[in-house]
């Protein structure tokens, strides 16, 4: 199999306005590569939710996307506070977002469930006080 294409992004934790720009870039690249529209949509939505989470909950981080022939792997790494209870965080409607974030349109508690729904595989590695790494895979159909 040919080598994976790799895209790397720094996600700025100070700037809510620019949050999501990495996902927009990835969407553009996948289109240029001629990936199936459904695959592109799943990758973009999952990555966008993860990117927003890094900005609003973890002060930013790094996003890496690996494009293989048969699957796309998204790795989102931050050095934020970590997630104390992953099972709880995965529940629809659970959110610790403050009112300021809710007034910006986020904090419905749907992000992590969406990421799971739109991907074929999702793994959360989190350590309190150290950070969170989320790895998601979308198979190319």
């Amino acid at each position, binding site marked *: 199999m040919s080598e994976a294409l790799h895209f790397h992004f720094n996600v700025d934790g100070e700037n809510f306005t620019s949050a*999501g720009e990495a996902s927009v870039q990835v969407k553009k690249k996948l289109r240029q590569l001629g990936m199936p529209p459904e695959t592109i*949509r799943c990758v973009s*939505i999952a990555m*966008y939710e993860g990117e927003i989470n890094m900005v609003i909950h973890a002060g930013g981080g790094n996003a890496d996307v690996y494009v293989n022939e048969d699957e796309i792997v998204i790795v989102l790494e931050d050095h934020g506070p970590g997630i104390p209870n992953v099972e709880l965080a995965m529940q629809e409607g659970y959110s610790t977002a403050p009112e300021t974030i809710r007034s910006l*349109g986020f904090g*419905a508690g*749907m992000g992590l469930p*969406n990421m799971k729904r739109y991907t074929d595989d999702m793994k959360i590695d989190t350590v309190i006080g150290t950070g969170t790494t989320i790895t998601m895979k979308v198979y190319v159909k």
Partner: protein
Amino acid sequence: MKIREIARLLDAEVLCCKDHLDNEVYSACGSDMMSDVLAYVKDQAVLITGLTNPQVIRTAEMMDMVCIVFVRSKRPTEEMLRLAQEHGIVVMATPKRMYEACGTLYAAGLYRSED
């Protein structure tokens, strides 16, 4: 339903991508919470919202949505219109409130078709 028809029904002012007014819309989603919108996948949908920040445009772009209606005469910023233009998303502003805007489109036959 054509995007042009949505603008007419809602007395909306079209703010960008007027050249796409004859495109079809098959479903709609009304919300101020972006993750609620992202939970919902449908082709060629319109987003009805009272929220005005660039994430609204990015959310619509991620979902391949074709039109955004801002209710209560909320005005998007120049930066938002630039983003929408780049992605070919029609943006309009209606004086109607969320409830009335959604009800009007629903009554005119624009349903959220069940999955």
